[in-house]
């Protein structure tokens, strides 16, 4: 009798009986809404905010929009570096930050001007950041990390920060902001998975603005939603209409409350980037004007104005007045940025380690002398913007 195994059948070309598969087709993912695109308000879901706060929400929306417009213009005039606008995502930005507390830590991805300002960053410093002035990137006075330009790379830090907050017994959460593109990075995966294991107070807040530069969401992942990615980590997922500021506020409030109990949450805010990716981008190369227009029709400011009208709260939040105020703030911030002291070249050496290493000290001293002796270096070195 031959005991040697040999044969292998020719492979089946169809499914075997009874092999059930898990498919996203069977998944029902709700999208939380308070005010529909048509303006219908679900009263039961309206958050319990004071009238002044409802009005303030609107001011923040206008602020985000105005800031983006002004910053974009400033960039065009050469007074800012590359700038990434949040146009179209105002509700998603404002509603989320409105649900946070000052003690929470925010890890920004770039477009969330209003969120950072609300969290305590000064407008001057934000402008200086976009002018490439590291000295202002301290985000002084606000629990805000540096902007994660390396997409997705902040996620494990969010987890670590939340872990630290938990160990320290802080009554606060860590909130990572990121886009749909970031969800495809290994860092996102490892960071969220680890948070799910640790059960730390982390909120992973994804603004799914439908594009990662030119790549539409449908090609970013085979998943129909970002929210369902939560299931891969055993954490809760929440999907929300990102153009409905009250819905976003609800979603992030809920996520924050859960996270505080050690249940990390992945929130997907479904929105749209109406502008260019950044001031260096030309979106006409990769998307149709009709699509952009269809989302303009879902404008988050219009939507919220409908709600305010519905509640009779429109008085006192005259958009023109708010814009003027924000413009004035912006002018002031630009002036303050322009006045920001020029730093000398030591700045690029002294902040790498707590104590300069001998070699860095040598390089710095050599360079100081060299610059003194070589005024012609000025031709090559442009501190192009103040600050």
């Amino acid at each position, binding site marked *: 009798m031959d005991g040697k195994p040999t044969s292998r059948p020719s492979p089946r070309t169809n499914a075997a009986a009874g092999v059930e598969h898990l498919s996203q087709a069977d998944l029902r993912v709700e999208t939380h809404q308070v005010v529909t695109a048509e303006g219908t308000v679900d009263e039961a879901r309206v958050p319990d905010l004071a009238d002044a706060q409802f009005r303030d929400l609107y001011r923040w929306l206008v602020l985000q929009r105005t800031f983006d417009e002004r910053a974009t213009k400033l960039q065009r005039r050469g007074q800012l*570096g*590359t700038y990434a606008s949040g146009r179209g995502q105002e509700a998603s930005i404002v509603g989320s930050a409105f649900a946070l507390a000052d003690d929470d830590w925010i890890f920004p991805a770039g477009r969330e001007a209003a969120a950072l300002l609300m969290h305590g960053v000064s407008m001057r410093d934000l402008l200086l950041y976009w*002018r*490439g*002035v*590291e000295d202002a*990137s301290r985000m002084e006075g606000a629990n805000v990390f*540096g*902007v994660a*330009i*390396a*997409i*997705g*790379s902040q996620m494990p830090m969010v987890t670590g920060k939340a872990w630290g907050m938990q160990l320290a017994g802080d009554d606060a959460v860590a909130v990572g902001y990121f886009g749909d*593109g*970031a969800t*495809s*990075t*290994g*860092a996102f995966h490892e960071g969220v998975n680890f948070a799910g294991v640790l059960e730390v107070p982390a909120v992973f807040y994804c603004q799914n603005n439908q594009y*990662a*530069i*030119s*790549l539409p969401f449908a*090609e*970013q*992942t085979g998943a129909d939603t970002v929210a369902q990615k939560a299931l891969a980590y055993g954490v809760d997922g929440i999907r929300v209409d990102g153009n409905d500021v009250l819905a976003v506020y609800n979603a992030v409030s809920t996520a924050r409350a859960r996270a505080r109990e050690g249940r990390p949450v992945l929130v997907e805010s479904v929105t749209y980037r109406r502008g260019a990716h950044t001031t*260096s*981008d*030309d979106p006409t*190369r*990769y998307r149709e004007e009709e699509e952009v227009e269809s989302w303009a029709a879902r404008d988050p400011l219009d939507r919220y104005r409908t709600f305010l009208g519905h509640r009779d709260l429109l008085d006192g939040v005259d958009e023109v007045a708010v814009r003027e105020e924000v413009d004035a703030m912006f002018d002031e911030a630009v002036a303050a940025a322009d006045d920001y002291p020029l*730093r000398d*070249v030591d*700045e*690029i*050496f002294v902040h*790498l380690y707590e104590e300069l*290493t001998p*070699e*860095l000290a040598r*390089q*710095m001293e050599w*360079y100081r002398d*060299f610059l003194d002796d*070589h005024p*012609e*270096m000025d031709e*090559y*070195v*442009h*501190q*192009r*913007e103040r*600050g």
Partner: protein
Amino acid sequence: MTMPRETIVQAVNDALHTEMAADDRTLVFGEDVARSGGVFRATDGLLEAFGEERVRDTPLSEIAIVGAAVGLATHGYRPVVEIQFSGFLPPAFDQLVSNASRIRWRTRGRLTAPMVVRTPYGAGVRALEHHSESLEAAYAHVPGLKVAIPSTPADAKGLLTSAIRDPDPVLFMEPKRVYRSFREEVPDGEHAVPLGEAAVRREGADVTVVSWGAMMHPTLEAVDELGVDAEVVDLRSISPLDRETLLASVRKTGRCVVVHEAAKSGGFGAEVAATVAEDALLYLEAPIRRVTGFDVPVPLLSMEDYYPPQPPRIAAAIEETAEF
């Protein structure tokens, strides 16, 4: 042969078009390379010319881009992938170290990874954080991975062509600082410049100045303004390194200055200096000077220009070395 005048980024695009047309196993993919033609337009027109099967936008997944290229390469394809900025290559470092560079070694040649990772590197375009890195030294230290860095349009086309045709993986780092800063004549049609051969850009007797990529330009500017009879060597490939050309030049001049944009400590200038100190020491009449970026990350744009070697720094080092 007609010689169209092209910028470096046009020459890259030219090489991609030419090689994709010549060999239909050649594929191009990466973030924003298809529809939008690349954030620097290096892949412009490829989608239209070669179709969706061969030119693809990918998710924001540097690990997957490089790793998938290895898989495709083992199946007879010739992937040429783009990492949008070299500051975003570190997430894929493991795929380079653990797979791309070793697949031939691991399987004793049964599976191979003829593939190219293209990536714009270096500072000087007023970009955001992580958009200005020059980590070539780390990659050149990985056995099994070749690293080419052109400084001119003709070399950009020629070296990329060779990289695409190479039977082994090549990291192709493009000097984005000078992507569009000048044009020169570039051979039409197929044009290959071998990997591992340096070019002597200026012949001279008094001092050898070695550089590559973006820093060739301030280096040549410095040399041309100085009254020094310098020999200027453009390495073009840092792995493999053309030891012969380097050593022959230093043996002739007896002096050596290396210029690169990356941080000094552990930069590839160290390998150049060490090679000379090991194999041409007796010819040396002066210390080997390195003119490099400082040992800090590249500053954001307000201080960015303080970082890289500028012509005055290079000129001073050449002068001191020549007069030593």
